[in-house]
């Protein structure tokens, strides 16, 4: 291989690569691995806020969260269910819209690049700004959405969709789909571009219609990229914070109808000053996500074998 002599010579300098990665490795140890491990550790202690006497309490926090009925534990079950609803609905929505957009933008037509750029706009705007803008669109009196719903006749009076303690989750799901579909589109588009056109030509000659071509060529060939895109989006949107925090609790109060496990963990830790229980909720949230990932990987593995 070309350059192998150089690589051999480089191998002799054993110290240099370690010097090169040292700053990054130290930064990761101090600001990522250590906080993570200590966070897990705190979930087994009694720490409420900074300066508290830290005592090891074993699984007490977990027991309290899973069976308690006061404070955050009261909302735990609901947060758990809503986490799954939120992630499933947001990612499914992003996939459907993203796939549709990718299929359209993969075709040849004038002005395609302009449309491709326009689709990226939701990703470029800061999430907090997006959340505020949608909050304004959901405004009960002068908001865009209420206005159109009234015009179509679906709505008679002013309706507050968001920001109340018992507001539902689905208005936030709409925002999540809107915010996240462009990235799904970009990933799926890169997959679509890898499919040889001759396959479609051949299928057309064989008399396959558009739906058949999509089912029997596009989907099977995109299998890997779809799996990767969906897994990544599940990972991101399970842990999503900004939209739910800004719109859901827009009124300043905790909105239990529109919260997920990470939001509950944040409130318990930082708003209700119980870091240990917040950490425990985060750990449970992480384990649930991990279980979903493993289940999905095994399901994928099985279906590939078939």
């Amino acid at each position, binding site marked *: 291989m070309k*350059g192998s002599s150089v690589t051999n010579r480089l191998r002799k300098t*054993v110290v240099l*690569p*370690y010097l*090169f*990665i040292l*700053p*990054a490795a130290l*930064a*990761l140890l101090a*600001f*990522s691995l*250590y906080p*993570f491990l*200590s*966070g897990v550790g*705190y979930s087994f202690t009694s720490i409420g806020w*900074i300066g508290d006497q830290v005592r090891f309490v074993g699984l007490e926090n977990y027991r309290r969260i899973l069976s308690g009925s006061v404070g955050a534990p009261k909302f735990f079950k609901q947060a758990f269910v809503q986490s799954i609803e939120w992630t499933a609905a947001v990612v499914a929505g992003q996939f459907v819209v993203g796939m549709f*957009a990718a299929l*359209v933008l993969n075709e040849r*037509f004038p*002005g*395609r690049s*302009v*449309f491709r750029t*326009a689709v990226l*706009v*939701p990703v*470029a*705007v800061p999430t*907090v*700004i*997006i959340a*505020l*803008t949608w909050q*304004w669109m959901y405004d009960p009196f*002068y908001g*865009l959405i209420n206005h*159109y719903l009234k015009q179509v006749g679906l709505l008679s009076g002013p309706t507050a969709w968001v920001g109340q303690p018992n507001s539902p989750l689905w208005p936030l799901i709409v925002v999540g789909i*809107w915010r996240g579909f462009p990235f799904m589109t970009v990933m799926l588009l890169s997959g679509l571009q890898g499919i040889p056109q001759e396959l479609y030509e051949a299928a057309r000659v064989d008399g396959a219609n558009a739906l058949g071509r999509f089912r029997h060529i596009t989907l099977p060939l995109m299998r890997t990229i779809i799996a990767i895109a969906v897994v990544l989006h599940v*990972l991101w949107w399970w*842990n999503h*914070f*900004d939209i739910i*925090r*800004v719109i859901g609790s*827009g009124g*300043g109060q905790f909105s239990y109808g529109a919260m997920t496990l*990470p939001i509950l*963990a944040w409130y318990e*830790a*930082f708003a209700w000053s119980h*870091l240990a229980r*917040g*950490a425990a*909720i*985060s*750990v449970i*949230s*992480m384990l649930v996500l991990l279980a979903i990932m493993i289940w999905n990987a095994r399901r994928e593995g099985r279906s590939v074998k078939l």
Partner: protein
Amino acid sequence: MTTAEPTTPMRCPSREPRQPNRSVPVFHTRQLRSAVRVGMLCMLAGFIALVALIPVMWMVKTSFETPRFIRSAQIQFWPIRPTLENYRAVLANPHAMIARATANSIIVASAATLLNLAITASAGYAMSRYDFRGKLLFGTYLLLFYMIPRTLLLIGMFVMLAHLRLVNNLMGLVLAYATTGVSLSVWWLKGYFDSIPVELEEQAAIDGCNRLRALWHIILPLSMPAVAGVGLFQFVDCWNEFMMALTLIQSTQLRVLPVQIVYFMGIQRVEWGPVMAFSVIVAVPAIILFSLAQRSMVTGLMAGFTK
């Protein structure tokens, strides 16, 4: 078609010979069909673009609208009576503290970006050029990093920074931001370094240039598109970040833009004009930098492919 060579089964049954027979009508329907197809596609793409753009257009429109018309039943996507009133109101409002928050955001985002680049450029180089024990472990950790829930990381970081007296301190935020972006930066830069031929350093070594100097004087200048792209991305990421900024900063004077605007919204509840004007002010730099980063990412990847 078959009359030409009926006895050669090997011949592919192509459609070429058929075309002259009924060329004119086929050509016409085909042209018509393709025109309809293009029209349909444009309509669908336009619809998708509209869905993507409407909230942003609505934000911009509201920011230029007078309060009276913001509260009118008339809905249109350009201001009914354009005005800069909202922008003036935000800039003049002492509670908006927009200058202070902008300065804080710029300081934090620039410092975090520079720190991030300083530690990831050499790491990306090592990942690209060397084989060493622990390389796989390091690389795996960079990927697994994304599995760690942000809230859990934040709880650990909060306690640690509190002990270091860095909570409610912009320095703490800088450190947090600089490290959360390490993973992406290292992978992006490694990918770019991979595209630069190792012969360049070989040549430099013959000329008596050591690795560190080669990295600094040869590789980094060549990698400017990637370094700029990474830098822009990190900057925008810090500019937009909300959760850590909300948690690690408590004092009014130290708030960064995303946190400040949410507080401002809390004070300003009913008046959407100034809030949307503030939003535009925060979003415009992010959109510009994002599109620049986007372009440099494309050129960077192109350079990677053509090498």
